[in-house]
């Protein structure tokens, strides 16, 4: 009897210990599927990209063949020295700087309008969302047809897109938007129109969602206080939407820096009008082409693009934090800063200094934002000229 009892206790103890060990690893086991996928599809590629970028003249074929590569930063040098890279950077930045503000502003406008109407709201919402679910190459081809202008002469009939038809209707001359011999600015206009149109639905969706979440009583209160419509928009709607606006701008810039398929959609893989190939080349276009036989260079270019996106996103985040109107921000920060501002201003009353701080802060924030934009445009211009 007694031995039996001891035995059972022993068995129990062992199983208890096992349980503990299992508990310790349980979390990891649950995480394992996600971790494995992350390792294979995210961590390993990142590691591999960095490795390839730092091996001189790396190509996969030679690597498989048993060749060894020297460690160095030659790939980065080659990317920066390559004349086409400057075109890519210029195009990418130009498209970003032009399309993000335009599309954000338009999306805000459309979202506010959509939110203001009751009948047909769902229907219009669906229509505005259509571009989002349509393939961008397909849309690109439609746009290419719309902006087309081929004057056939005697050999074949003219083929003029709807845009030029509209221009003709209003008494303007045809513009060569995308065909052989078209000018750079015309190409850019087409790209901006296309990218903005393509980027609108997602932004409208986010902003409309934000608008519908705003408490209606703020608008009723504004109405009672006889606030003009424009002031309601600038002083109530926009500030209350600022988190969504920040999100839309940040994702817009990230998407803009990765612009590629839209250009392929309109101009084809030559990424430029006939006779002027690669005039509209972008960073991602450059990377894709380099992947073919110069993986080292492609990796280096990808890392440079990453650095640019990272920097721009950081600036965006900084600005959006500085201009967050929702009042949920850390107030501790504000309180800490107030006395220092008081000292700096040598103001007698703390109330005044905080006052000063409150008015100056958004000014600083917005001027940083404006400065960034100006620098970006200036960079683009320098590259261009």
């Amino acid at each position, binding site marked *: 009897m007694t031995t039996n009892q001891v035995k059972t206790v022993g068995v129990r103890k062992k199983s208890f210990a096992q349980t503990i060990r299992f508990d310790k690893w349980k979390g990891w086991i649950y995480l394992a599927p996600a971790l494995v996928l992350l390792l294979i599809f995210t961590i390993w590629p990142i590691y591999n990209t960095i490795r390839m970028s730092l091996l001189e003249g790396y190509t996969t074929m030679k690597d498989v063949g048993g060749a060894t590569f020297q460690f160095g930063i030659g790939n980065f040098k080659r990317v920066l020295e390559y004349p086409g890279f400057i075109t890519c950077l210029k195009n990418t930045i130009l498209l970003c700087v032009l399309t993000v503000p335009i599309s954000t502003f338009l999306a805000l406008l459309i979202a506010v309008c959509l939110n203001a109407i009751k009948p047909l709201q769902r229907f219009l919402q669906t229509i505005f969302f259509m571009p989002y679910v349509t393939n961008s190459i397909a849309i690109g081809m439609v746009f290419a047809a719309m902006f087309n202008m081929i004057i056939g002469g005697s050999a074949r009939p003219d083929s003029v897109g709807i845009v030029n038809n509209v221009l003709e209707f209003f008494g303007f001359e045809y513009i060569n938007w995308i065909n052989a011999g078209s000018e750079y600015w015309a190409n850019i206009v087409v790209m901006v129109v296309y990218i903005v149109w393509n980027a609108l639905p997602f932004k409208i969706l986010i902003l409309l969602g934000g608008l519908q979440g705003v408490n209606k009583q703020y608008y*009723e*209160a*504004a*109405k009672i206080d*006889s606030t003009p419509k424009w002031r309601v928009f600038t*002083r*109530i709607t926009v500030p209350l939407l600022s988190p969504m606006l920040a999100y839309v701008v940040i994702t817009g810039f990230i998407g803009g820096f990765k612009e590629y398929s839209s250009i392929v959609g309109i101009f084809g893989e030559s990424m430029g009008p006939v006779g002027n190939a690669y005039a509209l080349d972008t960073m991602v276009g450059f990377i894709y082409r380099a992947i073919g036989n110069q993986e080292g260079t492609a990796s280096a270019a990808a890392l440079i693009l990453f650095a640019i996106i990272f920097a721009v996103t950081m600036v965006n985040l900084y600005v959006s934090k500085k201009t967050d109107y929702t*009042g949920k921000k850390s107030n501790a920060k504000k309180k800490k800063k107030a006395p220092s501002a008081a000292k700096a201003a040598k103001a007698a009353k703390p109330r005044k200094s905080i*006052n000063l701080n409150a008015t100056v802060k958004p000014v600083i924030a917005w001027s940083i934002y404006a400065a960034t934009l100006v620098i970006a445009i200036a960079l683009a211009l320098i590259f261009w000229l």
Partner: protein
Amino acid sequence: MEIVLQNLTKIFPGRGKSSEEVIAVNDFSFTLPDGKLVGLLGPSGCGKSTTLYMISGLQKPSAGKILFGEDDVTDLSPENRGVGLVFQNYALYPHMTVKQNILFPLQNLRGADKLSKKEMMERAYEAAKLVQIDELMERKPSELSGGQQQRVAIARALVKMPRVLLLDEPLSNLDARLRLQTREEIRRIQKETGITTIFVTHDQEEAMSISDLIVVMKLGVVQQIDEPQAVYDDPTNLFVAKFLGTPPINVLEGKVEGEKLYIGESAVMDVPGVADQEVIVGIRPEGFVLDANGPLTCKLSNVEVMGRDISVVSTHEKSLNPTVRSIINADNKVPATETVSYSLKPHKVFLFSKEDESRIRFEVK
């Protein structure tokens, strides 16, 4: 400024085909004297908030007229009415500081009313001082307590010197203690500014304590409009009698025969001038007098001591409430018997018709 409501009616269309339309406010006529504080009182869904929103202009009346003094404002949009409105949950702009919130209505002024920055600041600080929040001007609403937010909302409503101040359940978000304090505050502010004020509440005590006039509403229909004490002492019907007073009025079945009121078998009171009929008897808790030989005998349940007063809880077979509760002075001794007998103070006893619950008046000697 005087506010006149003429046959004000609001009908909300029914949703869908099957549901009927809802008459939120039905034929409300009332002249609100200048500079008074008026409480709109009633249970939830009685149309009191709808009335307030119609006066503010946020809702359009289905029929009837609203006049501010001589001006007909019925078709005027809220922007042009010059009213101040304090919302139930204050609706302070969360992204603005207290000062920006209070300045906001002033910055909207245009044309002849346009103020210089200095004047705006002065007005804002003046309003803030009135509600005693001038120390909190740089805070955001999220950094304020409920009571402070409420004051900011009042300051924002007052700063543009409205012709009418409207308060929608202004105290419902505050705790019991703050509620007492704030309602006195509202009274003080109203007296200091002299602005005609209407406030909505479902709390009869709140309405009684600070209003100059009370409007009691039920299902969109005005029941009674009078001074608080008058409404309490002379209710027009059973609903008003029941709605006002804590503890609530005791309601019993009775009948009148030969100008005498019977509750059960005993004649409890003379009611001169009332025809023979079945009636509902309302007796205020303070209308009972302990009297060993009194005509009204109840079964004693328990006695609650409340210091100044004692509350005697008893039951009576004719009572329409579960208990009959009387409040008597603590100097009296309740006999330790199974029953307790009362005589009644005639002016605390109200008779109501059994058919339509309207008041049947009799002569009080």
